[in-house]
């Protein structure tokens, strides 16, 4: 059942990582991604893994949780690995059979690419695991608030994100419900040719659209009734405050970057 999919990967907690300002975590995630792409040596990867491990330890996120999150990406990872493995030419070949050849260079590159993807995805997962979607939205809104001067509707965009997050579980439930109702009328969503199946989706999609529009209408009305008047003049209940721990986090992030650059220079 669709209901079984766990959504919004946030694991509530009260660790130093959880308590960091979302802006800090967002910026550090960006730094981390940049760092990953500047890594030029195995030592650099080791440093990234160590950093990731440290954050996981502090935030009480178990490796199992990360691995579960990586599951849907297995195909992409295998595909990347295969691509690098088989299509990197090199001098020394580990294995040759007819036109299939695997070079040492290919092996190394495949390993590096896979590692990079794993580290990249794990890093962003750590952000979403330790930061509520709302805090991420909030942090983004405030980081982007200088854009308001350029008339970018930053608040409206973040409100849209927030509403989307709120309604995703509802729409999943609704899809389940409509699917059950149509199946009860003998709808066959599982067999048939592709065009047949596409047509068989109409009884699902049309009610879903209709109900989404109805929800949007009702929500807009309810928001108006609660004095919604655009982003202008709005205040916030929860103020974001940078604290000492944020400064520490930035220093650690800087140290990671410096370490990677140093290792790259040294070729370790």
């Amino acid at each position, binding site marked *: 059942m669709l209901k079984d999919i766990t959504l*919004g990967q946030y694991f509530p907690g009260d660790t130093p990582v959880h308590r960091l300002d979302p802006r800090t975590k967002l910026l550090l995630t960006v730094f981390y991604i940049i760092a990953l792409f500047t890594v030029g040596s195995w030592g650099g990867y080791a440093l990234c893994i160590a950093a990731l491990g440290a954050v996981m330890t502090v935030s009480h996120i178990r490796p199992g949780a990360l691995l579960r999150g990586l599951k849907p990406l297995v195909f992409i990872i295998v595909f990347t690995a295969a691509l690098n493995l088989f299509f990197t030419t090199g001098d020394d070949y580990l294995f040759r059979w007819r036109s299939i050849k695997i070079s040492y260079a290919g092996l190394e590159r495949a390993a590096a690419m896979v590692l990079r993807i794993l580290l990249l995805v794990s890093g962003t997962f750590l952000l979403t695991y330790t930061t509520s979607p*709302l805090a991420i939205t909030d942090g983004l809104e405030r980081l982007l608030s200088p854009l308001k001067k350029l008339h970018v509707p930053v608040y409206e965009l973040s*409100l849209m994100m927030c509403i989307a997050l*709120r309604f995703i579980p509802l729409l999943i439930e609704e899809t389940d419900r409509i699917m059950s109702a149509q199946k009860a009328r003998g709808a066959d969503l599982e067999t048939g040719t592709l065009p047949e199946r596409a047509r068989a989706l109409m009884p699902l999609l049309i009610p879903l659209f209709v109900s989404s529009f109805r929800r949007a209408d009702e929500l807009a009305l*309810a928001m108006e009734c609660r*004095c919604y008047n655009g982003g202008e003049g*709005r205040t916030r*209940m929860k103020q974001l405050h940078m604290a000492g721990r944020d400064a520490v986090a930035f220093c650690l992030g800087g140290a990671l970057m410096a370490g990677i650059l140093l290792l790259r220079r040294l070729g370790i």
Partner: protein
Amino acid sequence: MDPVIRVENVTYSYPDSDRPALDGVTLDVARGSFVAVLGSNGSGKSTFAKHLNAILLPAAGRVLVDELDTAKEDDLLAIRRRVGMVFQNPDNQIVANVVEDDVAFAPENMGVEPAEIRRRVDGALKQVGMYDFRLHAPHLLSGGQKQRVAIAGVLAMEPEVLVLDEPTAMLDPKGRREVVSTVEALCRDRGITVILITHHMDEAARADRVIVMDRGRVALDGTPAEVFPQADRLRALDLTVPETTDLILRLNAAGMALPTGALTVEACAAAIGEALA
């Protein structure tokens, strides 16, 4: 009477309809009272509700909230703040995916100071008995709980009047009981004026005043004890008579002399018990 809302000869038609949805409605609502509005589908009760906080504006006549005319655009936010609205489907009025953030939505829109918002949010959640759920995700709550969060979201505006448009229509009996007793307590303990639009006679029986609408007009208006015994009139308006009232009327027709104002099952049982003692 100190009226918080005054509706004066209001008429309204929807663009695609040839029959007015409201047809010369005049009434006052006393401050701090609990008013139930009944009527079959299409009687105009929802349209009436939407006039109370300027979602709809009268084509003729006027609506005054604390002497503010809803037709004056400058007073729009002042009116919306005074008259809070709760709708049928709780899912479609909750904006945020954390309970307390949702309750904060209205005061944030109003530009209230952060510390004051916190105070209001905590207070509103306590008033509806949802304070312990302040960090929960709304979609994991029961229908009755969601509807109480929606009520808290409106209370955070510190309104004078709470208008609820069929808030229990989608709830199970337990959720209905939760919502109705919450609303009743807000009126009795906090002095908030409550206007409850409903199809359920047992909910209306708990109000101070019942207004029955029919084809855009006020058909009946009085205390529940005055309105419900008018069984024939109610049936003619496509409404049911509460079983308690119907039983008492039939027993009286057979010769007993029971008070017709006994509306709840408890009052009805007490009245019959006394007569047979």
